[in-house]
């Protein structure tokens, strides 16, 4: 894991929009402890903005009534929280065991050669970003790629070309 603690300060205040606000209030009733809402709230912030800024962390801490340092801990510990902006299409390629055995590297190589993005990078213009992730739990249909949360199984470079061409 690389250091995730260099948060981006946007200089703009953050707050939940009406929909997320309602969802926060609905969920908070399900837990006897408000701090249990840190993870759901981070998800809501990411869902709203696509990533999580320093301001979002501060907002969540104040809203829940906990330390900003604690929300900071969780945001950096759990690697699915994006702490910098990602592309319009965020591509996750599984790098672990079964996907590795079934040639996930071909897919990573293709993305570098054709789209020019290495893991951790965003393409020019912000259309694509790439992340190599740990086991996605689709080992029986490896290799697997996840784009904006949608799974694409039994992938190959050929199939990936078709999928990418079909994106808006």
């Amino acid at each position, binding site marked *: *894991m*690389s*250091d*995730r*603690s260099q*948060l981006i*300060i946007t200089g703009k205040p953050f707050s939940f929009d009406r929909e997320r606000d309602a969802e926060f209030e609905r969920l908070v009733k399900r837990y006897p402890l408000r701090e249990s809402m840190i993870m759901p709230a981070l998800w809501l912030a990411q869902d709203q903005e696509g990533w999580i800024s*320093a301001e979002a*962390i*501060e907002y969540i*801490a104040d809203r829940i009534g*906990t*330390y*900003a*340092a*604690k*929300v*900071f*801990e969780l945001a*950096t*510990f759990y690697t699915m929280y994006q702490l910098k902006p990602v592309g319009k299409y965020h591509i996750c390629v599984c790098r672990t065991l079964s996907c590795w055995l079934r040639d996930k590297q071909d897919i990573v190589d293709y993305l570098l050669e054709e789209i020019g993005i290495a893991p951790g990078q965003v393409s020019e213009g912000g259309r694509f970003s790439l992340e190599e992730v740990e086991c996605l739990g689709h080992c029986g249909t490896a290799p697997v790629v996840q784009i904006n949360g949608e799974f694409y199984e039994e992938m190959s470079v050929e199939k990936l070309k078709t999928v990418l061409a079909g994106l808006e």
Partner: protein
Amino acid sequence: MAEMVKLFVNGQEVEVESGKNLIDALAAVGIEIPHFCYHPALGADGNCRMCLVGIEGGRPPLVPACKTPALQGMKVQLDTDYIKKIQRDILEFELINHPVDCPICDQAGECDLQDYYMTYSLEDSRMSVPQVSKAKKLDFGCGVVHDQERCVLCGRCVRFTRQITGTGELGIVNRTDAARVAIFPGRPLDNRYALNIVDICPVGGNDQ
């Protein structure tokens, strides 16, 4: 007067206060169990693994002394080859990514890591690959300067701000060997007791 129990340390009988954790109970009779994360004012955390001791016939036979109460008849092992090896191993892990810049460190001479190394290890370094680098001279506020590389991540300072002052300015961010103590940007230490974290740091992580 507290209730006393008799137990055995390396086969020798000692009388200690019942129910106290083994670190404190044995310290009272002059027996040291090395530890980083435990502090009497902050309680046991169990993360450093430096205080692991053997309990003959115990289930489990290997326990953190900080979380183990002294009981009548207990047979504590501190000097077996297995325990000594664990102590050397933990010190090796603590040191592989440590800068070992003792000559310019204010804590030198009163540093637990340094003292334990001299007492329990004295092994040569086997680190032949690049160390993890982290930030140094971080201004945590209230005059506290933090060195993430010297820090052993025992979490005493973090627990101090949460349990004692209730201000919670510090956290351990990231996971793996990228973990480090940090403040949230723009929310530095801001409490009257902040300088205590320099004092409770077992190593040279927090400086004035």
